[in-house]
């Protein structure tokens, strides 16, 4: 394979991985802290996309501006979801923990379908197809932007978790909820903030990819399953692991897709996913103990 082509394939894969990372980091954080697998995660991305679309379609607001309106909106929706559903499912029987977010996902998807129909909509921006050329490698500008934002978010989150008192409180809750409560940490508030920030990140991703991808109620499906794979590979609960795994999966998808075809790439990573779950449930990059389900 010529070098140019190889570089282009790797770059495309990395950029794609960047998109996944923004979803994966939030999903893994929710699991790590709340021990809840958020099946509704990609629906918040979908809502972010719709937010960007409508602000653009109705008032011509550019997605890179509307992100400052949409993300707080999605954050509030996260607060609402957390209050109404998530907090009530914590400590409940397993069936509640698993199916409550699945129910939220079904609800949001179809509420969007009801409100906005199954029509497929696209945001058109002058930079939608803009490209930066790095030697012979071409990098889509919106992809690059979301890639940078994803990495910045992941880095910021990492710094927040490790450098601030509240971040450490979040870690404390993840490591031992009861002990954290006994330190005077308001566990409910930690849950609320974690969940809402994570889904707001998903909403941000929705806005960022709006210039590239079409918007429709079921768009979340294209991502959620891949992101599950990533989060498990990276080790449920591990932010750093999620980022690395996201980039890895992006590259694998791109390379296998080029060599073998898209359909088989999908099959391949599901098999890897199963194998990892069975052989090393803490993930390829996760630390031992994180997989213990409490």
């Amino acid at each position, binding site marked *: 394979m010529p070098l140019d082509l190889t570089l282009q394939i790797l770059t495309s894969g990395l950029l794609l991985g960047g998109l996944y990372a923004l979803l994966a980091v939030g999903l893994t954080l929710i699991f790590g802290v709340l021990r809840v697998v958020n099946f509704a995660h990609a629906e918040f991305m979908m809502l972010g996309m719709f937010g960007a679309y409508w602000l653009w379609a109705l008032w011509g607001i550019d997605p890179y501006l509307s992100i400052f309106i949409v993300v707080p909106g999605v954050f509030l929706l996260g607060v609402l979801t957390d209050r109404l559903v998530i907090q009530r499912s914590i400590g409940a029987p397993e069936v509640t923990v698993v199916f409550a977010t699945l129910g939220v996902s079904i609800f949001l998807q179809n509420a969007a379908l009801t409100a906005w129909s199954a029509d497929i909509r696209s945001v058109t921006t002058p930079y939608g197809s803009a490209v930066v050329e790095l030697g012979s490698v071409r990098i889509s500008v919106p992809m690059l932007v979301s890639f940078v934002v994803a990495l910045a978010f992941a880095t910021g989150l990492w710094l927040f978790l490790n450098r601030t*008192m509240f971040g*450490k*409180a979040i*870690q*404390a809750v993840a*490591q*031992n909820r*009861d*002990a*954290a*409560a*006994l*330190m*005077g*940490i*308001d*566990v*409910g508030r930690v849950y609320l903030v974690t969940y809402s920030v994570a889904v707001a990140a998903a909403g941000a991703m929705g806005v960022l990819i709006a210039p590239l991808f079409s918007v429709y109620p079921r768009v979340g499906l294209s991502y959620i399953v891949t992101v599950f794979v990533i989060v498990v590979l990276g080790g449920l609960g591990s932010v750093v692991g999620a980022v690395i795994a996201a980039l890895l999966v992006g590259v694998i998808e791109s390379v296998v897709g080029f060599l073998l075809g898209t359909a088989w790439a999908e099959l391949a990573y599901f098999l890897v996913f199963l194998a990892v779950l069975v052989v090393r449930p803490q993930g390829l990059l996760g*630390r031992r*103990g994180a997989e213990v389900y409490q």
Partner: protein
Amino acid sequence: MSLLEIEGLRVSYGDMLALDDVALEVGAEETVTVLGANAAGKTTLLRALSGLVPTQEGSIVFDGEAIDGLPPHDRVERGLVQVPEGRMVFPFLNVEDNLRLGAYGKRAREELEATFDRVLTLFPRLAERRAQLAGSLSGGEQQMLALGRGLMARPRLLMLDEPSLGLAPRLVSEVMERVAAIRADRVTVLIVEQNVAQTLRLADRGYVLENGRLALSGTAEELAASDEVRRAYLGM
């Protein structure tokens, strides 16, 4: 006036009764111990006091105010602090972070640096291991950390759940010495222990729980002299 007053406390998990009609009192600057066999309800009592398990009946009054319905962090804010059984340090955070998290509440945070220095003086080992992950400490060190972390919250009433659990005899004595030091610092202490003899030497008064009910109470001397206690817990 008592710092803590409990009356008619009842806790159950599902249809299983864990505590039934428990009444107990802790005066200011007193050290009180709760004795009892495994699963007699001692840990449940402390968890109920901290708000980690809901109570079905009865009242908990702390410093003249009913705190029954308050969430755990509000109770900590009022100075009702617990060092839980099994230490429960945050294994993937370092010693310093563990300690600082102890002072997470608003009241404690105001004096964080001063308390921090004092705790490190009290537990020099922790000062040496400041940057080490808590999970990598030995059992004794983890217990010291848990105690220190509890002190960081500037407790008015410090509840200790089995602080000597699983420690070597030498360490047990060390822990007890620290508890005595804490007590000398005019902190009120409510201690749950299996190590009955040492605890009774430390405590002013004590209660004995049996199957979730209060079976006996009295001064430490009375309890230590009680045949029942001696036979059941001292193995004599």
